């Protein structure tokens, strides 16, 4: 039972707010629509406190707002010149160990680091120095892992462990050499759910099949539903011209923004060259291309003929669990109303 004593009030940038005890400063600030930049924080994962970008000032001391719980009477300043300078320098440090290849990066335009570099106008870092170079590329066919772009926020490690329950990757080595990788630096071998791509703030983890297929600004995004199992995951399909090149999922959906390998990577069948593109009619034992008119006429004639000679119950229909409600409705209506039989079923009704 939550009691009233668990309610605390504090001020953030001079605005008063009342929150449940245990609420972080970051969460409280967001309630006030005060934006604090973050890189390692992710609302669906446990706090890490690693990137330090979300620092705010409490009693003159910088604390990470993503991990510090609000306290009664706390006075928080989110963007004093002192804090903004520190923040800028932290981002600068991250950029000093990050490749400057936004021009070819898949995430350009949707990269959280790029966004911060832009906001703080960091063109060349003050803190220049050696950058991690990893010549080896991961051979798995789904996830491009460019660890030079990794800012070690740890979101991927946490999502893989906490959400997906797999633990395919973890931090390895330490200090400046710290690297997130599969065991013994083998190629990634996992469920390939792509959750790590979803949470990655930079271009370190991107979908391999979509590399080079379309830039963020040239993409149309359409919300729809996954065609695979019955979970009904919400998908956002990213289309470039007439091709679906990538999938993401809205984070507040019933699937909470998570997908599986099929939903995330399994939709290229849409643009498969194997797709049936024209009606086929069997002639002399062979299926040959036909016009719609020919196919419709032939089909309707044959069905009518059978119905007229053998009765409507000589005709049956099998509908599909892959088709829409509307199509299924029309299908059974067709058999019942147009053909006149209840011989309708679907294969996967069990």
């Amino acid at each position, binding site marked *: 039972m939550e009691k009233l004593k668990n309610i605390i009030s504090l001020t953030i940038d001079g605005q008063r707010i009342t929150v449940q005890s245990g609420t972080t400063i970051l969460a409280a600030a967001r309630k006030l629509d005060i934006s604090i930049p973050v890189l390692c924080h992710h609302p669906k994962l446990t706090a890490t406190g690693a990137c*330090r970008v979300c620092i705010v000032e409490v009693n003159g001391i910088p604390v990470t707002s993503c991990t510090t719980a609000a306290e009664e009477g706390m006075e928080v300043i989110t963007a004093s010149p002192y804090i903004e300078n520190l923040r800028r320098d932290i981002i600068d*440090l991250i950029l000093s160990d990050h490749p400057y290849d936004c021009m070819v990066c898949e995430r350009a335009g949707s990269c959280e680091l790029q966004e911060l570099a832009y906001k703080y106008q960091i063109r060349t870092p003050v*803190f220049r120095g050696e950058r991690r170079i990893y010549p080896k590329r991961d051979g798995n066919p789904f996830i491009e892992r460019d660890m030079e772009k990794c*800012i070690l926020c740890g979101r991927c490690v946490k999502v893989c462990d906490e959400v997906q329950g797999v633990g395919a990757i973890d931090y390895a080595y330490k200090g400046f050499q710290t690297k997130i990788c599969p065991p013994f630096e083998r190629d990634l071998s996992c469920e390939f759910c792509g959750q790590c791509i979803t949470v990655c703030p930079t271009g370190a983890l991107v979908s391999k099949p979509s590399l080079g297929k379309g830039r963020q600004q040239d993409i149309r995004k359409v919300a729809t539903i996954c065609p695979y199992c019955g979970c009904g995951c919400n998908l956002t399909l990213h289309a470039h011209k007439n091709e679906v090149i990538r999938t993401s999922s809205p984070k507040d959906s019933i699937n909470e923004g998570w997908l599986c390998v099929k939903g995330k990577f399994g939709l290229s069948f849409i643009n498969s060259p194997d797709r049936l593109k024209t009606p086929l009619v069997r002639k002399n034992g062979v299926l040959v291309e036909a016009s719609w008119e020919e196919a419709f006429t032939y089909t309707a004639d044959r069905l009518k003929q059978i119905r007229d000679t053998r009765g409507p119950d000589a005709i049956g229909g099998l509908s599909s669990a892959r088709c829409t409600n509307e199509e299924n409705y029309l299908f059974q209506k067709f058999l019942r109303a147009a053909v006149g039989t209840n011989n309708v079923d679907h294969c996967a009704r069990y």
Partner: protein
Amino acid sequence: MSSQPIEIKVCLGTSGSAAGGEEVLRMFQHRISEQGIEAQIGRRCTPKKVGCRGFCSRDVLVDIIRDGNKTTYQSVTPIMVERIVQDHIVGGTAIAEWTVTDEYASFHEKQHKIVLGPCGEIDPESIDEYIAMQGYLAARKAMTRMTPDDVIDEVVRSGLRGRGGSGFLTGEKWKVCRREEQHPKYIICNVGEVNRPLAEGNPHAIIEGLLIGGYAICASKGYLYIRERYHRSVERLRIAIEQAREKGFIGPNVFGTGFDFEIEFSFGTEAFICGEETALMESIEGKRAMPRVRPPFPAVQGLWGKPTVINNAETFSNIPIIIGRGGEWFSSIGTKESKGTKVFTLSGKVRNNGLVEIPMGMSFRDIVYGIGGGIEGDKALKAIQVGGPSGGIIPTSMLDLGLDYENLAKVGSIVGSGGMVVFDEDDCIVSVTKFYMEFLQRESCGKCTPCRVGTRRMLELLTKITEGTGGDEDLRTLERLSGVMAATSLCGLGRSAPNPFLTSFSHFKDEYLAHIRDRKCPAGVCTALIIFSVNEEQCKGCGLCKRVCPAKAIAGEVKKIHLIDPDRCIKCGACFRACKFKAIKKQ
């Protein structure tokens, strides 16, 4: 003729052993039994091992206690044992030329040995000897006559602060944990590298302190976190635990009070970051030692998510003394805010390297020149680094500063767990700073940005300077970087990592500028900035330099002046060291 037994105490600390202590002890045992010495003189001779008494530069140290007189021999080797046995043990005459000199007395005189007191006196593997000097009385007193709150009050009264680094008031920390309602609770003793002499010399004091602490916060389990490779410390603590368990001091129903307490080892492996409390807990849990964000503090949510107190072995060693003699007594030692004593490993270019315990507030001058006996080879003192790798560098001008938590904080340093390294005129401050930064960047866990990237960038900039390619702007960048790291790093390692640079830069700015503007290393250490050449007036043409030069960079005929080819010279310094006529110049 007296029948009082003769005691022979052989120092078998890390240093004593390294110097051949075991061999010396074996020699004594062998001589005494083989030659029937005991029968010959009609009394018992008991050679025994004792822990480190601190004066390690003269190891192996051996005490002979005969008829109530203690004679200490220094630098004892196995060969010397025969004569000591004959002349001193049998003959009753000490061998004056082998005994310790005045410096041994002055080394000890200015110290105030509370926790180190029994080290070097008692056999660390004997609980009876510990009990004989009132061991476990404090624990008995705490558990039978005091409530946990009383114990905490006493520790609060003593003003004891954590000896591991942060210097947080021990009693206050315990109080927070005591208040937590969640159970079980844990109490952890970190046995760090500096604590090894304590573990080796008087392990029962640590166990007793841990036991009292466990009682005070109502923990049921104590952990001894220690690196596995400290074999001797581990072994002595293990023996101590077994003995204490046999006596019923740990285990179920301690002292019949119904309090159950178990102690377990948790073996760490080498990682400097494990000095950080939360990283240490991660390590005990078997994970990568990456510090956790705080709050929540360990006293509220620590090991396995349960309330936990962590102190180091020196802190725990003080506890039986505080309970035994009272917090009031303890607080009479030291300064206003820093009570008691602190153990340091005095090392570097000081004459008397060793383990010292000083009352808080003692000046660096007294430590270096009083206890330490001054600088080796009568060179000039340059600086003192205190507080471990992330401590600060104290210049000669601050020699009269009293060593306590407040003063060190004021000069940008920390007390730390007790490292003190002395540098002389031959040491380059920039190079030393670079060395510490190299260590810190290697030991950074890599979790937070400022420390992971910052330490690397600082190292790169310092390297640039020592290589003579630095510019003034690099100093500004270093300062700016220091500010970010100190303000925003996740744990103490990153926050204190700029200390060596900040303190050395503020006191030795000229030396930095010499590297940058003059491309010179005044101490002649930074190889990129030094040139070896032959002083023609002193060269006798002996050819030794030519022979030792690995790069074949020296040419010259016998009895004629030799020359160094600067292009070939790899600046290894072999010629410099080899020349008997000081004819090689280093600039």
